[in-house]
């Protein structure tokens, strides 16, 4: 470059000395290396042991295997759709359009926890319900709820630790109780939540399950008042206890029953918003809020259609709990951002894979009609 025949720039000045040039080239090298290093540092290249969304997702795959095209958690499920009829009671809490009086189309998905899409239905396997509310003239709201009244862990890190601790030992095929006990010793809140969960009544099916959002959020109404809230879906279908005893023979009995019931008559839930008071924990889903907290029934969910994952719109939806309309915002619960990050990773992986048929097939859905 500097040997270009017309070079005028250096002509008036003394030529840089050789050693000076080497130092300057070295300086440039240092600057560029620092820039690349900063980029790599931010991208986590020097901290491979950090818990990242990718490592979280890997853990699901490690425990339940890689099932291409399926969700890495809550892998087994069916799609549903229907409507939500808001009664207007929610408007005093949140300006979100879904809470105005009126009807909003809903797409959802019932699921069982775990990364195995062909797992056998069991009464006490955690059941999930993901919902997307799409008001025609408002913003989309998504939520993913489960049928537990409290969550077993308080932080994403504890979730991961517990997941790893409950991984079956290759030697015995069973989780190592020593690891689990060590985990519980470090996490008394999990032991505490386990007591609550042990005594919980388990319902007979999806249709009479109560689904809890668990994580706290903040609602803001049109006057700008902000309220900490949690929400749940309480079934209009009467409670019936799950039959205790031997494992059911039908591997899809929960889904088959859901299909049959929804085809007989639409299933309904009330969306109940629980209003938190100052001092109620918003960053600890292992703790229920006191029973006497005000609960507002803000509308009715009606699900009248069930579909297998092969045709359901729910398959293409990431029920990211932070897809929120204006009027709803995350609380300080560390779960929310972490869930959003891990769901995104799981969604991205499955989106690029060919999915084999789901456990609950279109034929199963047809049979239930």
């Amino acid at each position, binding site marked *: 470059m500097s040997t270009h025949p017309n070079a005028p720039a250096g002509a008036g000045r003394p030529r840089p000395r050789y050693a000076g040039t080497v130092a300057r080239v070295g300086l440039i090298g240092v600057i*560029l290396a620092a820039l690349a290093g900063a980029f790599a540092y931010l991208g986590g290249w020097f901290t491979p042991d950090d818990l990242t969304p990718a490592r979280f997702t890997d853990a699901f795959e490690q425990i339940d295997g890689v099932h291409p095209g399926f969700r890495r958690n809550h892998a087994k499920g069916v799609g549903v759709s229907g409507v939500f009829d808001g009664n207007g009671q929610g408007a005093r809490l949140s300006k979100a359009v879904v809470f105005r009086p009126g009807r909003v189309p809903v797409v959802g998905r019932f699921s069982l926890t775990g990364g195995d899409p062909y797992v056998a239905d069991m009464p006490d396997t955690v059941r999930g319900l993901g919902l997307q509310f799409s008001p025609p003239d408002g913003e989309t709201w998504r939520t993913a709820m489960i049928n537990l009244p409290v969550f077993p862990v308080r932080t994403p890190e504890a979730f991961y630790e517990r997941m790893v601790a409950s991984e079956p030992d290759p030697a015995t095929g069973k989780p190592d109780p020593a690891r689990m006990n060590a985990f519980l010793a470090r996490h008394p809140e999990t032991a505490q939540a386990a007591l609550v969960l042990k005594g919980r009544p388990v319902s007979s099916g999806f249709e009479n399950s109560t689904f809890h959002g668990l994580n706290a959020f903040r609602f803001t109404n049109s006057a700008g008042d902000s309220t900490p809230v949690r929400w749940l879906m309480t079934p209009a279908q009467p409670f019936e206890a799950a039959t205790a005893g031997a494992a059911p023979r039908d591997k899809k009995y929960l889904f088959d029953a859901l299909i049959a019931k929804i085809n007989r008559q639409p299933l309904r839930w009330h969306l109940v918003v629980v209003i938190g008071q100052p001092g109620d924990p918003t960053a600890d889903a292992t703790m229920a809020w006191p029973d006497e907290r005000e609960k507002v029934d803000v509308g009715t969910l009606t699900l009248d259609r069930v579909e297998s994952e092969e045709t359901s719109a729910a398959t293409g939806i990431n029920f990211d709990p932070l897809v929120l309309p204006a009027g709803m915002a995350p609380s300080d619960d560390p779960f929310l951002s972490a869930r959003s990050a891990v769901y995104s990773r799981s969604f991205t992986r499955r*989106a690029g894979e060919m999915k084999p048929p789901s456990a609950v097939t279109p034929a199963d859905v047809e049979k239930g009609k």
Partner: protein
Amino acid sequence: MSTSTERHQFTTLSRLLHWTMAAMVLTMLGIGVTMVVSLANYHALVSVHRPLGVAILILVVVRFVNRVLNPPPPWPATMGRAERLAATAAEFTMYGLMFALPLIGWGMLSAARYPIVLPGPLRLPYILPHDLMLYAALRKTHTILAYLLFLTFITHVGAVLVHTLVVRDGFLKRMVPWKVRPPEPALPTDPVRP
């Protein structure tokens, strides 16, 4: 539009755009690689990543129009033909990437049917059909192009620094935010040079 005193420097608007966007693009690259490895800050960072990226998309269009209206000052004589070509190619690669990356970001969120939320009441419409495979391909492309933009940026800064510090032709002055006096008229080349 460049006046004769500015012929050795990019116009004020060009320089303003260059440094504003350099800061934005570097922030975006940093936020991008940070958020995908973060649990606690993922949501906060994505919430900045989307609108900042969209701002880059708008600014790069403005900047491209400005570039056509206000061509760069002539290359210094310290640059050979091949180097000028390479520099121009790198600059247009950066233009291309600053346009493509946010557009792909928008497109991939459209294909995945994520609401594309900007601050306040602003939302972007979907520009692609709901298609998971399309989303996956665009998501991968977004990563590859972002890394490519980072590499081009490193090359760009490396080349500017080599000129400024090693060749010492005052190359950086072409783009520094402040006004620089024009250089002394160039001396005639040494006639006795072999």
